[in-house]
């Protein structure tokens, strides 16, 4: 009887612990809210400032000289799409390949060295990447889409590689063994069983990487420079959204600053839409994923 009382009664320690728990939870809640406020404020601010300059012309017209009025950023929108697209087309398969290597051959010497280099690259400031490509490519061949894409590629690769590696590492080893023991070659186990089972997470990593490079400014200043006109060749300087925002925001002309705000808003919403469509894609994919092979039944 006595023992029971000792166990079930509230001691002072219990109350103190409950109170402490409540206090800590409240702190965490408050901190999360505080962290979210500036984020929401940024979105509001960008929207507020930019929305007035958003119109059809913004998406279809070239920039006009200050004083003339009107004009748009179509050159920068297309330019960003080109440079980010080029970096992604190369960077996604390459980065995923490296991620697969890092995870599936993790104890090899090459993997250890590669992982070290990638970690260095991830933590390198992006402006350093820009200067590196400047020294490597721009000095010899001039500013170009290629140089810009190369800089973005260098930023994207380690992100995709490390992301893919971490995701694949979460798959327990017995799943690999199950595949191998069925007489499935290792590369098919990886590409047809492991990666599909974590595809949604891989897509998330890829989208985050694209969103990341879409907003990079510093490395592009050194590589793709900028251009007032539409793209004509991949080996000439090319306008990109972040760089054009940066330039227009510094002109001192109100009309240009307006355009810069509109550009910033488009950039923010682009990242939003990327996230949104990723989720949408995954939602529908999840539905048919299960019947991927089953569809063969009439």
């Amino acid at each position, binding site marked *: 009887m006595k023992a029971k009382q000792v166990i079930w009664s509230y001691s002072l320690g219990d109350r103190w612990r409950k109170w402490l728990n409540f206090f800590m939870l409240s702190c965490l809640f408050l901190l999360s809210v505080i962290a979210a406020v500036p984020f929401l404020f940024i979105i509001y601010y960008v929207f507020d400032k930019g929305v007035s300059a958003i119109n059809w012309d913004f998406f279809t017209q070239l920039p006009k000289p200050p004083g003339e009025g009107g004009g748009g950023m179509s050159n920068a929108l297309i330019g960003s799409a080109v440079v980010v697209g080029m970096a992604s087309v190369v960077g996604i398969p390459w980065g995923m390949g490296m991620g697969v290597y890092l995870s599936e051959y993790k104890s090899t010497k090459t993997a250890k060295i590669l992982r070290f280099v990638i970690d260095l690259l991830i933590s390198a400031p992006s402006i350093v990447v820009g200067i590196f490509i400047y020294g490597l490519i721009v000095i010899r061949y001039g500013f170009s889409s290629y140089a810009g894409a190369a800089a973005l590629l260098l930023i994207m690769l380690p992100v995709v590689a490390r992301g893919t590696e971490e995701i694949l590492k979460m798959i327990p080893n017995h799943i690999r*063994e199950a595949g191998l*023991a069925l007489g499935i070659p290792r590369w098919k186990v990886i590409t047809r069983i492991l990666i599909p089972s*974590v595809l949604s997470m891989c897509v998330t990593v890829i989208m985050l990487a694209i969103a990341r490079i879409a907003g990079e400014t510093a490395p592009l200043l050194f590589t793709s420079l900028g251009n007032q006109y539409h793209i004509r060749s991949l080996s000439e300087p090319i306008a990109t959204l972040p760089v054009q925002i940066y330039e227009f925001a510094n002109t001192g002309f109100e009309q240009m600053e307006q355009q810069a705000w509109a550009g910033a808003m488009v950039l923010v919403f682009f990242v939003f839409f990327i996230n949104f469509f990723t989720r949408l894609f995954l939602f529908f994919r999840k539905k048919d994923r299960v019947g991927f092979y089953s569809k063969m039944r009439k």
Partner: protein
Amino acid sequence: MKETKTLVKIQDLSASFFSIPVLKNIDLEIPIHKVVALIGPSGCGKSTFLRCLNRMHEEVSGAGIQGQVFLEGQNIYAPYIDPVLVRRKVGMVFQKPNPFPGLSIFDNVAVGLKLMGVKRKVLFERVENSLKQAALWDEVKDILKRQGTSLSGGQQQRLCIARTLAINPSVVLMDEPTSALDPISTARIEGLIRELKEKVTVIIVTHNMQQASRVSDKTAFLLSGELIEYGKTSQIFTNPSKGKTESYITGRFG
């Protein structure tokens, strides 16, 4: 007495991890269409032995192997032999049921066939047959599109057996296939194993002496990487010729 054909012949097989010997000069002959049980205390090398028979041992880092394993007269360790093809002839069922995540019940069985290049036309039939052989068809025929991982543990293990049978192996290795299952699921799988030997040869590792005596025709006793005794199950369990075997099966060590 009727002479039975040998399907797997293991000759002077030794295996190691990081140069530490785990199996020592094992010689063993596995007769066709029989169930052979492998018993012995934990860590004596039973799993390693099984994994040497389908060339899965070499997938682990630090693994070393010597000796020969003949399957239908062919040494599977001959340099020109592709381990992938060996594994299609020698299937494996693991201790923990491990259906492929994200794949439906149907796909779990179909994926091996699909990646081997089996034609769509016959795919469904082969999946159905395999599920029937694994005594799972009646339970899953209406829910083939559900995730394989949504099944119960016992059903998942039968799904893994079906997946293995689908590619038509001549030998199926089972590493403590029921140790993670409840008694009813265990009984079902034991019944299944007895039926399976009509078609395939089964080598099963078990910690359960009753299970070994219920399902197997022959039993091998391993101790510290050495084969102590190998013979008819009835004889091993009633009248073992070695003292160590008797101590083990009567529960005196291990």
